[in-house]
C-alpha cells in the first residue's frame, strides 16, 4: 500500500497551486460579485495544458490520469470552486469523445479541446429529467446524412462558453433510445438560452441550451445510436462526479486553512481562540472531514486509473465530500462569528459554493442509490 504521490504529481500540485494563488485568487472576489467568468484566466490555463490533463499525448494532451486530474482540480478548488467546476466540466465534455470516439473523431475534436482553444460541456439535464435520464425530451431525428435536434437543456455548466458540446438526445424509446452527439456551438439551430443567476459557484457559467431544428452530421454520433445512456452515465460517474468531488475537497481544504489561520490570530479572553476547546472541536471536525474526503476521492481516482469500475466509490466520494463541504463551511462561519457572514471574507462564499455541489452531477440521494447497488452485493 502506498499513500504517497510521485515526484511528478508533487510538481504538478506545486505548479497548479502557484498558478491558482497568483492568477485565480486575485479574481475570486470579483467573480463572486459579478458572476462573470474570467476568460483571461481560462486562456492562461488553456495555454499551460489544464484542459488536456487526461487527453492522450497523441491528441495534444498531457496523457495523465484521474489522480493527476484530481490534484489539478483540488488545487484550483482550494482557491475557487467555481473555476474548478468550469475546468472539470470541460474535462467532462471531452471524456465521451476520448473514451468512445472513433479515431477520426478523436483526431478532429481532441487537439483543439486539449489546447483549450474550445471549451466543452456535456448536457443531459432538461426540465423534465436529469437524474431521471429517460425523462429527457430532446429528440434527434435522422434526415439523410444529418440528425435534426430539437429540445432544451437546462442547468448546464459552461452553456455559454463551450465551443464543442456533448449532448444526450432521444433517438428512440427506452434505455436503448438515447444517443450522444457532438454539437458545435456555431451550428445552425443551436443557441445558448438564458443564463442562470446562482447564489453560489458564481463566476462559473450555467444556463440553457436551445436546439431548434439544429442539424448535425451523422458522423457526430459518439459510439453507436442507442448507446447514449451507457456513455452518458459513464462520463458522469467517472469524470463529472469526481470533478464535483474535487471542488468540494478544495472547499474543505480552504475551510481548514481559514479556521486555523483565523483562530490562531483572533484573541478573546486574553488568548487566541484556537486554544478554546469549543473552537478546537470545530477545527477537528473539519480536519476529519478533510482527511476522509481526501482518502475517498484519491482512492476512487486510483481505482479508475487502474481501469476498475468504481461507480459506488465515485458516488461515495461525491456524497461525502459535497455534504462535508457544506458542514465544514457552516462550521467555519461558526468559528468566524459575524465576520464569517461578511461578503469581504471567504467563509460565507465557501458555504454558498458548497451548497451548489450537492445537486451537481446527481444529488446526495442519487449517490445513495448508486452506492446501494453495490452495497446490496456485499453479502
Amino acid at each position, binding site marked *: 500500500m502506498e499513500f504517497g504521490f510521485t515526484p511528478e504529481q508533487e510538481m504538478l500540485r506545486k505548479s497548479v497551486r502557484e498558478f491558482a494563488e497568483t492568477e485565480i485568487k486575485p479574481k475570486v472576489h470579483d467573480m463572486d460579485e459579478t458572476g462573470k467568468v474570467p476568460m483571461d484566466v481560462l486562456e492562461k490555463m488553456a495555454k499551460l*495544458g489544464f484542459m488536456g490533463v487526461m487527453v492522450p499525448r497523441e491528441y495534444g494532451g498531457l*496523457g495523465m490520469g484521474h489522480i493527476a486530474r484530481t490534484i489539478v482540480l483540488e488545487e484550483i478548488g482550494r482557491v475557487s470552486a467555481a473555476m474548478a467546476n468550469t475546468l472539470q466540466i470541460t474535462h467532462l465534455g471531452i471524456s465521451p469523445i476520448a473514451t468512445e470516439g472513433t479515431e477520426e473523431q478523436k483526431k478532429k475534436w481532441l487537439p483543439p479541446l486539449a489546447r483549450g482553444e474550445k471549451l466543452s460541456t456535456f448536457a443531459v439535464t432538461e426540465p423534465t429529467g436529469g437524474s431521471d435520464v429517460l425523462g429527457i425530451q430532446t429528440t434527434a431525428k435522422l434526415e439523410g446524412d444529418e440528425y435534426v435536434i430539437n429540445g432544451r437543456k437546462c442547468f448546464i455548466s459552461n452553456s455559454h462558453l463551450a465551443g464543442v458540446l456533448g449532448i444526450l438526445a432521444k433517438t428512440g424509446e427506452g434505455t436503448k433510445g438515447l444517443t450522444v452527439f457532438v454539437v458545435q456551438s456555431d451550428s445552425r439551430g443551436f443557441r445558448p438560452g438564458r443564463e442562470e443567476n446562482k447564489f453560489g459557484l458564481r463566476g462559473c457559467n450555467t444556463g440553457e441550451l436551445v436546439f431548434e431544428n439544429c442539424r448535425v452530421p451523422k458522423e457526430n454520433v459518439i459510439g453507436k445510436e442507442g448507446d447514449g445512456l451507457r456513455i452518458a452515465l459513464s462520463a458522469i460517474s467517472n469524470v463529472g462526479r469526481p470533478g464535483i468531488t474535487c471542488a468540494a475537497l478544495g472547499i474543505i481544504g480552504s475551510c481548514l486553512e481559514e479556521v486555523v489561520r483565523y483562530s490562531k490570530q483572533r484573541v478573546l479572553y486574553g488568548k487566541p481562540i484556537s486554544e478554546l476547546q469549543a473552537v478546537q472541536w470545530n477545527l477537528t471536525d473539519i480536519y476529519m472531514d478533510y482527511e476522509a474526503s481526501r482518502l475517498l476521492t484519491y482512492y476512487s481516482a486510483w481505482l479508475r486509473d487502474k481501469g476498475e469500475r468504481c461507480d459506488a466509490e465515485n458516488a461515495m466520494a461525491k456524497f461525502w465530500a459535497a455534504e462535508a463541504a457544506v458542514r465544514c463551511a457552516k462550521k467555519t462561519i461558526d468559528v468566524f462569528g459575524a465576520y464569517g457572514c461578511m461578503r469581504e471574507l471567504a467563509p460565507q462564499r465557501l458555504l454558498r459554493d458548497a451548497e451548489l455541489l450537492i445537486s451537481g452531477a446527481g444529488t446526495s440521494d442519487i449517490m445513495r442509490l448508486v452506492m446501494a447497488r453495490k452495497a446490496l452485493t456485499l453479502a
Partner: protein
Amino acid sequence: MPPVNSIVCVKPVPDPRHWSELVVDPATKTLRREGIPSVLNPLDKHALEEALRIKERLGGTVTAISMAPLTATESLREAIAIGADDAVLLSDRSFAGADTLATSYVLAAAIKKLGKFDLILCGNQSLDGGTGQVGPEIAEFLGVSHVTYARKIEILERGIVRVERALEYGYMVIEARMPLVLSVVKEINVPRHVSLMRISEAMQTEVRVWTSRDLDLDSSRIGLSGSPTQLADLFIPETKRRGEIMRGAPDAVSKLLIERLRELGVL
C-alpha cells in the same frame, strides 16, 4: 543575429508563505529550514524568463545552475518545467556554510566547466540572503563584465547588449559586450508559469549533479572555511507598537509631532 547561450543561476529559498514559521537556531545562528517548503528565488524566475525570451527570439540554449543541497534537484526540475533546456546542481558537503564569495567561486568554476556562454543571468538578490553579491562576484571570477539592477535587456548587433539599469530615481543605459553577467530586477518581465505539458519531460530530464571532485577547485576557498564573512549574530528584531497622545491646537500639535519624530530618528 547569432544564437545566445544563457546560463541562469537559481537558488531555492524558503517559501515566503511560510516565513511566519521560520526560526533562527540560537546555537548555529542559521535558519531552521526543516519542514519549510522551498521555492525558486522569485527574482531568479525573472532571470529565467528573460533567458527564455532571448532564446525564443534568437535561438540558443538555457542552462539552469544552482549550488545547493541535493534536495534542490526539485527546484532545478522546476526550472526545466518552466523552460530551461538542462540543469546542473553543484552539491557537496564541503560546499556547506559558504558565504557569497565561496558560493560564487564554486559557481564560476562550474560555469567554466560548462564552457562557452554568452549571458549569465541572475536574480539581483535572493529573498533570504539578500546580499546581491553573487552575480557580480561570478563576473569577477570569470573576468567578464557585469551589470546589476537590469530592468530591460536588448541584444544588438556584434554581441553588444544594451541594458537599462534601474536607479532610485530613473535609469541608466549601459552598453556592454557579451559574454556578460546580468542581475535582473522584477520590473524586467512577468515570469511564465510552469507548463503542465513540460512536467513529464522535466521529470525525465537528468539534472547533472557535480561535486567538488568534478570541479577544478582550491579546497581552501570553498565552504565555511573558504568564507571570509564571519556571522556575528542573526536575530529577528523585535518590533513593538506604542502610542502617544498629543493634545492641543492643530498647529502646536503638528510642531510637537515633528519634533518628536525627529527625536526618534524617523525624520
